[in-house]
C-alpha cells in the first residue's frame, strides 16, 4: 500500500499560514529580548496572525480541496474555516490578555509565542489528513497549552491546573495512540481516506477491534473537547489557569478537537456512523447534563463558565452525532458563535481582575450595573447568548443544531437538549441577577485597556449581529464545508 513519494517545494505552499505562525512565534521570542514594551510583542503577534489570516484567505480563495505532503495535509474549506476560528481566537485572546498578563506579571514574549504555537498545533489538527499528523498537531497544541495554563507559575492554582491538565492530557493521548495503533494494525494505514477505503474493502465496519480503536480515539478527542466523562480536567484547569488562557482554551482546543473529531468520524469512519453515533449520544446527553447541572452550584465564575463550556460541547456534539454534513455545519457554526460569546464573557471576567483582587467570585459582580452600566450590559448580552436566548447569536447556534438533530430524526435528543438548555439558563441568569439586582458590597473597579475595548466591541457586536443576521456566517459555513 505504501508507495514512494517525493516531496516538492510546492508542498509547502498550503502550509504557509502554519509556517507564518511559527515564524512569528519565533520572532516574538526574539523581540522579547530587545523591546521593553511588551505591547509591541503582542502587536507583532496580532500582526503575524493577520498575515497568516491573509495567507489562509488567499489560499482560501478557492474552495478546491488541496492536499500536500503525500496526502497528510489537506487544505479545504473545512480546515480553513477552523483556522479562521483559531485566528480570531488568538487575536481576541491577545487583545484581552494585554493588561491582564501584565497584572499577572507574565506578559513576556514566550507567552505570545506559545499562544502562536498552540494555534499552529490547532491549525495542523484542522488540516491533518493522517493520524500521525493529527497526533503531532494535537501534541503541539497540548504541550503549548499545558505550559500556558501554568505560565503564572507563582500562583499555586495555575501550577495545579497545568499539572492536572498535563497528566490527564498525557493519559488521554496514550489512549489516542492505542486507538491509532489498533486502527493502523487493522487497516494498515493511518491516512484517513485510506482508512475509509480499507474499512470498506476489508469489511471492518463490524469488527470489535476496530470499534475498540475508535472508542479509544473518541476518548482522546472527547478529552480535548471536554465531553463527559472525560471532562473532569476542565473545571479545575479552567479555574486555575490564567483567565485569558482559560478563554483561549475553552475555544481553541475545543474547536480543534471538534475539527479532528469531524475529520476522523466523517472522513475515516463514515461507514461506522451507527456505531459512533451510539457511543456519542449517551456522551452528549451526559455532557449536557453534567455541564448544566453542576454549573448550578458554582460560585466561581470561571468554574461556572467551565461547566457551561462543557455543556456547550454537548450541544455541539449533537451536530456531529447526526452524521450528516448539515449536522457538521451546525456544529461548526456553533463553534464560531461560541467563540464570540465565550471570549466576550471571559473578557468581562478579566476586567474585574486588578492588582490584589481576583474578581472571580460571582458575588464580586454584585451591583456592577450601578458603577459600570456598559460592561454590565455587555455581560448581559453574553450571558443571554450563552443561555441561547434570542436575539443573540447563541440562539442561532442552538437553533441550527436542533434543526439538524431533528432533521436527522433524533427528536428526543433535541428535547433533552432544550431541557438542559432551560436548566442552564438559570446559572447564566444568576450572573445577570448579581449584576443587576443586587446592591454592590464594595466599589468595583474595572481594569480597562484599548485592546480590551476592541475585543469587547467585536465580540458583542458579533453576538448581536449574528443573532439577527446570521446569514453571513451560515453561508460561510456552508461554502466552507460543502465547497
Amino acid at each position, binding site marked *: 500500500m505504501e508507495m514512494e513519494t517525493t516531496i516538492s517545494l510546492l508542498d509547502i505552499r498550503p502550509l504557509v499560514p502554519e509556517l507564518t505562525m511559527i515564524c512569528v512565534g519565533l520572532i516574538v521570542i526574539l523581540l522579547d529580548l530587545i523591546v521593553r514594551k511588551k505591547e509591541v510583542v503582542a502587536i507583532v503577534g496580532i500582526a503575524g496572525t493577520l498575515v497568516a489570516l491573509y495567507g489562509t484567505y488567499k489560499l482560501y480563495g478557492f474552495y478546491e480541496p488541496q492536499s500536500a505532503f503525500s496526502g497528510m495535509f489537506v487544505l479545504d474549506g473545512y480546515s480553513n474555516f477552523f483556522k479562521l476560528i483559531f485566528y480570531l481566537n488568538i487575536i481576541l485572546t491577545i487583545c484581552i490578555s494585554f493588561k491582564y498578563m501584565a497584572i499577572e506579571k507574565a506578559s513576556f514574549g514566550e507567552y505570545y509565542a506559545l499562544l502562536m504555537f498552540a494555534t499552529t498545533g490547532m491549525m495542523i489538527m484542522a488540516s491533518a489528513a493522517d493520524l500521525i499528523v493529527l497526533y503531532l498537531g494535537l501534541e503541539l497544541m497540548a504541550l503549548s497549552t499545558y505550559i500556558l495554563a501554568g505560565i503564572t507559575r507563582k500562583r499555586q492554582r495555575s501550577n495545579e491546573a497545568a*499539572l*492536572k491538565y498535563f*497528566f*490527564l492530557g498525557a*493519559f*488521554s493521548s496514550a*489512549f489516542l495512540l492505542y486507538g491509532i495503533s489498533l486502527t493502523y494494525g487493522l487497516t494498515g494505514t493511518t491516512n484517513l481516506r485510506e482508512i475509509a477505503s480499507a474499512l470498506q474493502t476489508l469489511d471492518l465496519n463490524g469488527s*470489535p477491534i476496530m*470499534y*475498540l480503536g475508535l*472508542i*479509544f480515539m*473518541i*476518548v482522546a478527542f472527547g*478529552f480535548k473537547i471536554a465531553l*463527559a*466523562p*472525560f471532562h*473532569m*480536567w476542565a*473545571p*479545575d484547569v479552567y479555574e486555575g489557569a490564567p483567565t485569558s488562557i482559560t478563554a483561549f482554551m475553552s475555544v481553541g482546543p475545543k474547536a480543534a478537537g471538534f475539527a479532528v473529531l469531524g475529520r476522523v468520524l466523517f472522513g475515516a469512519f463514515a461507514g461506522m456512523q451507527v*456505531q459512533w453515533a*451510539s*457511543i456519542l449520544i449517551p*456522551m452528549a446527553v451526559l455532557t449536557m447534563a*453534567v455541564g448544566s*447541572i*453542576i*454549573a*448550578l*452550584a*458554582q460560585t466561581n465564575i470561571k468554574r461556572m463558565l467551565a461547566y457551561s463550556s462543557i455543556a456547550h460541547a454537548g450541544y455541539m456534539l449533537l451536530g456531529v452525532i447526526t452524521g450528516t454534513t448539515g449536522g457538521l455545519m451546525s456544529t461548526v457554526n456553533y463553534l464560531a458563535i461560541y467563540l464570540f460569546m465565550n471570549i466576550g464573557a471571559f473578557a468581562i471576567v478579566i476586567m474585574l481582575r486588578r492588582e490584589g483582587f481576583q474578581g472571580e467570585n460571582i458575588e464580586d459582580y454584585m451591583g456592577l450595573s450601578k458603577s459600570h452600566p456598559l460592561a454590565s450590559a455587555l455581560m448581559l448580552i453574553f450571558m443571554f447568548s450563552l443561555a441561547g436566548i434570542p436575539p443573540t447569536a447563541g440562539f442561532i447556534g442552538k437553533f441550527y443544531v436542533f434543526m439538524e438533530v431533528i432533521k436527522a430524526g433524533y427528536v428526543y435528543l433535541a428535547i433533552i437538549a432544550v431541557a438542559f438548555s432551560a*436548566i442552564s439558563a*438559570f446559572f447564566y441568569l444568576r450572573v445577570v441577577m448579581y449584576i443587576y439586582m443586587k446592591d454592590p458590597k464594595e466599589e468595583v473597579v474595572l481594569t480597562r485597556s484599548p485592546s480590551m475595548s476592541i475585543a469587547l466591541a467585536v465580540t458583542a457586536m458579533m453576538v448581536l449581529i449574528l443573532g439577527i443576521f446570521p446569514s453571513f456566517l451560515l453561508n460561510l459555513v456552508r461554502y466552507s464545508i460543502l465547497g
Partner: protein
Amino acid sequence: MLKYTLIPLLPFLSFLINILFGRNFIKDRAHWIAVPAVVGSFLLAVSAFLDVAGGRDINVNIYSWIVSGSFNVSVGFLIDRLSAIMLIVVTSISTLIFIYSIGYMHGDGGYYRFFAYLSLFVFSMLILVMANNFLLMYFGWEAVGLCSYFLIGYWFHKKSAADAGKKAFIVNRFGDFGFGLGVILIFLTFGSMDYMQVFGEAGGIAGQTINLLGYDVNLITLICLLLFCGAVGKSAQVPLHVWLPDAMEGPTPVSALIHAATMVTAGVFMVARCNPLFNLSEVAMNTVAIVGGVTAIFAATIALVQTDIKRVIAYSTVSQLGYMFLALGVGAYSAAIFHLYTHAYFKALLFLGSGSVIHALHDEQNMQKMGGLKKYMPVTYWVFILATLSITGIPFFSGFFSKDEILWRAYLAGDLGKFLWFLGTLAALLTAFYSWRLIYLTFHGKFRGTHEQEEHLHESPPVITVPLMLLAVGAVAAGWVGIPPIFAEHGDKIGEFLAPVLGYPEGEGTHAQEYFVMGASIFVAVAGWIIAYTMYLKKTELPQKLGAAFQPVYKLLFNKYYIDELYSKTIVQPTLKASDKIILGFDTYIIEGIVNGIPNLIGAFSRKLRKIQTGLLSDYGLIMAIGALSIIGVWIFLR
C-alpha cells in the same frame, strides 16, 4: 323615537352630571338636577303610556349592540301595555321618592352621590322595563343590582352596610347565574333574543327536549326555570330571600324605591313578560306558584316577631312578592302586575312612613324603643294607618282588590291552586297581625325611648309629608282600576288593559265561590287586626307569655329560621375555608412544591454531583477509565 330614548336617558344624564361634578361643584344642589330629570321621565312615560293606550306599541332597535357570527343583539325598546304600566309605576314612585329624599337626606355628606345613584337606578330600571330583548333586560337587571349594591352600602363606613351591599349583590348573582344561562339557552334555541321573535316562535318548540347530564329535559321548562332563578334572586324569593332584610341598611328612601316598589318586582315583571314561555311549561308554572306561596307564608311568619321596624316591612315585602309569584304561577299575570302596582304604593308609603319615624327618632329602628308617636307625628300616623289598611286587604283600599284577585285566581286553579289559596289566606292573616302590631308598637302606648329623643320628637317637614300624602292617595285609590267584575262590569280595567300582552286568565267560578274567597280574606284581615289589637294594646303582657310558652318557635322565627346561619355554614364558610386551607394550600405546597421542588432537586443534585469532582488527579483518571470501560462494555459486549 327620541322621546322614548329620553325616558331612561334623562336620569342617566342626571347620574353623569352628579357623579362627575357633584363632589366639587354641585354638592347640596344635586336634587336640582335629579328631580327635574326624573319628573321629565315621568312626564314622558305618561305620554308613552298614552301612546300605548292609544293602541300604538313601540318596538324599535336603536343600535346593534353585540354582533358575533350568528349572534346579534341590539339595544332596543319595546313599549307595550305591560312596560307602559311599569314605566308609570317606576317613574311616578321615583318622583315622589326623589322629592322625599330632598328632605330625608338633607345634610348628608354624600348627598350628590345619593342622587347620582338613585338616578342611575332609575335609568337601569327603565332599561330593564323597556328592553325589547333578553340581553338588554339582563343589562338592566344587573345594573339595578349594581345600584342596589351602591345604595345599600351607601353608608359604607358601617361594616353592616358594606356587608349587606355585598351580600345583596352576590346573592343576586346566584340568581343571575341561572338567568344568564337562560338567556343564552334562549338564543341557542330561538336564534334570537328579541321578545317578539322568541315569543312568536315559542309555540313551535313546545315539547322539545334537551339532553342535560344524561336526562332528557323539556327545553321550555329548562329555559323557564333558569329565567325564574333570576327572578328568585332579584325578587327575594325563598331560598334567595336573605339579602332583602339586610338591604334595609340602606337609607330609607332606597328601601322604599328599590327594595319595595320597583327593583324587587323586576322578577315579577320578567316572568309576566315571558308569559308566552311560561304558559308552555306546567312544571315551571307550578314551581313559580309554589315558590311564591311558600315565600308568602314563610316571610310572613318571620315578620311576626321582628322588632326592627324596617325589617318587619322588608319581610312583609318578601311576603307580598310571594303573593305576586303565586299569582304568576297560577297564570294570573295581570293580577300579579295589579298587585305589583298597588303594592308599590302602599309599600313605598310604609317605608317612607317608617323613614319619617326613624328620622324623627334619630335613626332608631327598634320598635321596642318607640311607642306613642301618634301625638307627635299625626300625618305619619295617618298615612301609616291608610297603608296598613291597604296592605291588610280591608275592602275598598287598593290592596284589597289586588290581593283578592290573586286569591280568587288561585282558588280557581285546581287542587294546587286551592292549597295555594289556603296559604295565601293564612299569609293574609299573618300580614294583618304583624302590620297592626307594627302600628301599635310604634304609635300607640307610651314612648319607650330615651328622654332626649322625646324632646326632639316632631312631625317631619312638608318635603317628607307631602310625598307621603300623595302616596297615601295611591295606597287608597290605586286599586280602583281593578274592581272585580262581580262588583262592576268592566271594573277590572287593568286586567283588560293588559290582556293583549298577558292574556286573560282562564277559569270561571261561581259568584258564591267568589264571595266566599273574598269573605275569607276580609275575615282574616279583621281577625289579624283584632288579635294584634288584643295583644299589643289591651293585654300587653300576652306577647311575652306567648313568647315564653313557645320559646323554640319564637326563637326560630326571631332568627329567621336560621337561614343566614345555614348559608354561612354551608356556603360562605366552606368556600372561604376551602380557599384558604385547601386551594391555597394546594397552590402553595403542591404546585409550588413541585415548581420549586424541581429546581431545588436539581440544585441538590448539583451540589451532590460536584462532589465527584474531588480535585484529585487519580480520581479523574479513574473516571475517564471507567467511562471508557463502560463504553466498551456497553457497546461491544452487551450489544
